[in-house]
Every structure is written in structure tokens, then in C-alpha cells.
């Protein structure tokens, strides 16, 4: 037959392309982490001086926007409130101005996501969570904190020991400005030694409780104690 003759002619280049791509993909899995680190270093200065924002489309070395809900209200100085309650002596509802009037602490630390991306040397500042807890007077019966986002869905948790570390911030500023809405502003948590999912965005409520309740992603398989490099099957360098 005519078609049979045509089909048996020639070389199987298609198969070679497919196999070649699979081989390249496997090589990429093996060395991709190293290549990505080199590219991150290369793209960082470009991104800092890029007025167009086009370099943000390069999916390397940049914050990615994660939200679990379809939309999050935009709150500002007029309508933002942080409610601190539960097993505390002096429950309070704080405005942005209240938080701004407290002692500000600055940190320069990386942000490491559990999905692999990392943004280096981010400038953070805000109120140490331990300062805030001291201000409301946590009762001895309290063992943990539950955080709730004003996005209506996201929750997180910390033990009281974790929450009083000197590298856990109620962040008001990051990246040399107020925390923007997309980064979880006006107020978010920043837990330096833990993966990003622990650093709850759009922080609306802190409740002192007597036991840890796993947060949003933790109910979906992530480790409750999200130490960088020591949880979720990952071995990233500590920040």
C-alpha cells in the first residue's frame, strides 16, 4: 500500500526527540537546583533595577502570591484591627497606629517557601510577637496560639515556646515599605526559622489557647512544626 510504504520510510526522529527530552528533563531534575541558584544570583540585580516589572515574570528568586480564597478584603489604617484574646489577662483590639506605637524590631532574613522558592535578605520590621504577648498578659494555662487571617479561611498555630522566640515578628514593614496587600498586608506574621506557610498573611486575630490546633495547610498534610530544613521532608539551609 502507498501509505504503508511512506510510513516505513525514514528515520524515527520523533522518538529520538521524545527520548532526548526525557533525558534532558532527568538531567534538569538532577542539576536544576544548582542552576536555579546561579540564575537567582544573576536575576536579582536585574530585578532591582527593572522599572517595567517584566523580570517578575521570570519564575525565579521572587515572591509568589499564594492565597487560599478567591478574594481578600483590603484593609488600611482606618479599618484594620488585630484582635488578641483567649487565655490572656487583658484582651485587646489593636489598630495599625497601636501596633506602630509599640517597640519596633527589625530583622534581615530570608523567606523560604515549602514549595522550594526562596527570597534572600528580606528586610522585615514590626512588633516582636513576645512583646505583644507580654502586653496582653498570657495566662499560665495557655500553651499555644491560634492565628486567624481576615481572608476568612486561613489559620495557623504556634506553641507558646515558638511564639516567644526573638525571630518571630508581627510584621508591619517588609521590602523597605509597609507590607503590601499582596504580601499579606497591612499586618502579617513573619516566623524566620519556619517555612512560609507558617507566616500567616492578613493577620486578623490571635487567640491564646491550651493546645495546638493544626492550621489550614497542616490539616492538608504539612508539618505543624514547620522548621526550615527539618520538616516536610526537606533539607533547605536554615535562614
Amino acid at each position, binding site marked *: 500500500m502507498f501509505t504503508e510504504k511512506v510510513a*516505513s520510510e525514514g528515520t524515527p526522529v520523533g522518538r529520538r526527540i521524545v527520548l532526548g527530552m526525557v533525558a534532558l*528533563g532527568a538531567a534538569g531534575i538532577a542539576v536544576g*537546583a544548582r542552576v536555579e541558584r546561579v540564575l537567582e544570583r544573576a536575576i536579582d540585580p536585574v530585578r532591582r533595577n527593572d522599572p517595567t516589572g517584566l523580570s517578575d515574570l521570570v519564575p525565579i528568586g521572587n515572591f509568589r502570591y499564594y*492565597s487560599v*480564597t478567591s478574594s481578600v478584603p483590603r484593609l488600611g489604617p482606618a479599618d484594620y484591627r488585630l484582635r488578641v484574646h483567649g487565655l490572656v489577662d487583658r484582651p485587646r483590639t489593636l489598630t495599625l497606629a497601636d501596633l506602630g506605637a509599640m517597640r519596633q524590631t527589625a530583622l534581615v532574613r530570608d523567606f523560604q517557601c515549602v514549595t522550594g522558592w526562596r527570597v534572600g535578605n528580606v528586610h522585615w520590621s514590626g512588633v516582636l510577637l513576645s512583646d505583644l504577648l507580654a502586653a496582653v498578659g498570657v495566662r499560665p494555662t495557655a500553651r499555644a496560639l491560634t492565628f486567624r487571617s481576615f481572608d476568612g479561611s486561613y489559620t495557623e498555630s504556634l506553641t507558646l515556646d515558638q511564639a516567644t522566640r526573638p525571630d518571630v515578628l508581627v510584621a508591619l514593614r517588609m521590602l523597605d515599605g509597609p507590607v503590601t496587600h499582596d504580601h499579606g498586608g497591612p499586618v502579617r506574621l513573619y516566623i524566620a526559622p519556619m517555612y512560609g506557610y507558617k507566616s500567616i498573611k492578613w493577620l486578623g486575630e490571635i487567640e491564646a489557647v491550651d493546645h495546638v490546633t493544626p492550621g489550614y495547610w497542616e490539616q492538608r498534610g504539612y508539618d505543624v512544626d514547620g522548621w526550615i530544613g527539618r520538616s516536610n*521532608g526537606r*533539607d533547605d539551609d536554615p535562614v
Partner: protein
Amino acid sequence: MTPSEFPVVPTTPGEPAVPSDPGRGGGSASVRRFGRATRLVHWTTAAAMGSCLITGAVLLLPPLAELVGRRRLVETIHLYSGLALPIPMLVAAGAVSYRRDVRALNRFTTSDGAWLRARLRFGAWQRARARGATAGGVGKFNAGQKLYAAFVAGSILVMLGTGVLMRWGPDLPGGLPDAWRTGSTFVHDLLAYGLFFGVAGHLWMAAHDPIARVGIRTGTVPAWWAAREHPAWTTSAARPHRTLDEDTLLTDGDDPTSEDDPAVRPGRARSPRG
């Protein structure tokens, strides 16, 4: 989208076909180009790929992520679209007509090489001349179509492999080395851009050839188009005045000699066994 079935020429079975000269735009002579299996694979793969690309863009690009949110839902759709991608091809591997198309896509002839080199010629005039000189060797698929098919097949395998490692790597007994997971993410993200531009190119080419679109939608193309675009495939189609075999006219489907035979047949409703 599902392949629609309609007769190109409403001929009833048994009614003798009226051959027309395709070179003069007679129009009614048509050629079977794609069997049902091939078209189903094309459209189901296209749907899954489109879903992967759209949800993937939402997961990867911050402006889209901000617009859509609902990360968990988008992730779930992306995951299942991706897992569905190879299924149509695997299922269709049981169909003779589909396997023959795959074989034709796999094999590159010397004229395919000449065709590709002609596309890469420098200078518009030289390129046009080289393209003209190599057009006659194009079979059922041109070399660009063959390259694209291989690229998509390879991409699906790589995206599947890296995606599975990203999703289930940490659950493996002993755990996946972290660098491998980061490497998988790197490959997955990079190839996503490649696939986006590849698919965009595919749609661009399709947008410029309405007859090719009719071909992948209905399975049938006019003989004059086949003779112009795929002369080495439609050698016999270019001579439509040959005596038409009644059997070839009326049987269609799994018979390996008829499904793909570029012999001219009047367009008509396909048999249910296509």
C-alpha cells in the same frame, strides 16, 4: 470541543460519486485525513493541555494568582488535568488508524530534512525558493508538524514526571532528595514556558489554515487542499479521475487499508465504527 460529524458532500451510500477535478477547484472531491481515534486524541489532549496551561499560569504568575486566588482548587484542577494528559494517547494506541498516524509523525524522511533546512534559509528570496523546491516532498505531515508532535509528546512525559515528583516526592519511602524536588520545579516551570510558546505557535499556524482546521474537526479535507499542502501524501488524490472502488467508497473504519488511504472519496457521513 468534540469532533463534529457532517458530510462534506451529502452523498447517500450507493450513489455513485461524481469525481471532479480538484485542480480547478471543483470542490466536491475530498480525502479522509484523520480517523476518529486521532481526532478524539487531538481534542481531548487539547482540552487537558489547555486546562493545564491556564491553571498553571494562575499558579505561576503572581498577577493571575492575585486575580483568581483559590489556590487549592486551581492546584487540584491542574493536577488532574495533568494526570489525564497521557490517557487519550494510551487508549487510542489500540486503534490501527491512530498508530499509523503516530508512525507517520515519528518517521522523518530526507525530504523532511530538506524542508526544515529550507525554513531556516537566510534571506526572504532564497527562503521562498527553497520552500518552493521542497514543498513537493511533504507527506501526510510536514516536518514542522512532526517536530511539534514529538515536542508535545516529550513535554507531556517530562511534565508528568516532574509534576509527580513535586506532588508525591515527599511521600516516597525515604523521601526525595530536596535538590531533586527543587530541580523538578525548575524543569516544570521552564518547560511550561516552552509549552506555552509551542502551543501558541500551533494555534497561530492553525489560525492561518481554515482547511486544516476542518480536517482535524471533521476528519475530511478537500482533495485540492491535500494536493497543495501534502502532495507526497495525496499522490493518488491529485489524480481523482481514477476509477473509484465501490468498497473503498462505502467501507470505512477499522479496515487498515481504507481509514488512511488517501484515495479520493466523496465526503460523506462516517460509519459509526470510524
